[in-house]
């Protein structure tokens, strides 16, 4: 039944062969062309991801600088004892008020990975803050989780 309506009348006479051809050897070279296009696409995507990452890192640098600034300034509002060691809750509270939508991985990456090509330029003062965070075992992951 299905075949009955497949071809009928005038159309049946035309045959089902295709009147097209391809350049000589086209199919022989096709695998190489396609594999090469895949490599090219992947390379472009990697480049694009890297460039996106640089923009993201630049943005994260700003956030990180703000974060560091707050961590440094915060102790000035407390007495000497507190100034030496701000409580984790206080840090978390400031972060909660001032910074939203942070990704812990990016934050750690921006602060700690000094080898990465980024706009993040740390002062020695900021280095001290990071050192302090590390020595006090204040994990950035924990800070971000508080947000």
């Amino acid at each position, binding site marked *: 039944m*299905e075949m009955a*309506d*497949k*071809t*009928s*009348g*005038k*159309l049946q*006479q*035309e*045959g*089902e*062969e*295709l*009147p*097209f*051809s*391809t*350049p000589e050897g*086209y*199919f022989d070279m*096709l*695998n190489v*062309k*396609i*594999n090469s*296009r*895949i490599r090219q*696409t992947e390379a472009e995507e990697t480049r694009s991801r890297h460039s996106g990452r640089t923009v993201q890192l630049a943005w994260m640098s700003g956030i990180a600088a703000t974060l560091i600034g707050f961590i440094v300034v915060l102790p000035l509002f407390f007495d000497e004892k507190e100034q030496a060691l701000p409580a984790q809750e206080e840090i978390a509270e400031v972060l909660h008020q001032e910074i939203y939508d942070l990704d812990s991985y990016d934050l750690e990456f921006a602060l700690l990975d000094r080898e990465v090509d980024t706009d993040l330029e740390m002062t020695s003062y900021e280095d001290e803050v990071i050192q302090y965070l590390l020595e006090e075992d204040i994990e950035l992951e924990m800070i971000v989780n508080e947000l």
Partner: protein
Amino acid sequence: MGISEKEYTDFDLVNLFNEPGKKEYAFNLILERYKERIYWHLRKFLIHHDDTDDVLQETFVKVWKGLEGFRAESKLYTWLYRIATNEALSFLRSKRRRFLLPLVDVEQQLLESLSSDPFFEGDALQLKLQKAILQLPEKQRLVFNMKYFDDLKYEEISEVLGITVGSLKASYHHAVKKIEKYLTED
């Protein structure tokens, strides 16, 4: 004794693709098995070799990216057809946007250039048949090609296009009538 390349089922090839270190090997076997079939599916729809070549390559780039997530709920070749069809439709859409052409004019362009295409080898009757097919709306053209030339089952076309079998039968019937009318007109 190892299994020979030709003995691999599509299912085997998909599994092989997901095995560590076998990805490229399996992909090239799939490519070898389906490249011509998908090429001709696209060529019937896009008419020109260069356009077909471009869309075919893009189709297999998508296959490479998507094969890992392919679940054997549908057959591999209907999945390939679906990707190729979507790529072809998207190609025509972007061509229309690029040249600010209305829906019918891309087909009109194809129609006009068909007879001067160096890779068109048909006689006058075949040229007329191709022109008749190009008069059809896009989806109807796809249905007609897959049924008439590729002899796919309605159930398979339904998987590719996401159209019910009933609609496909009606669509094919209308397409045949239109083409026959075109062919009998002088």
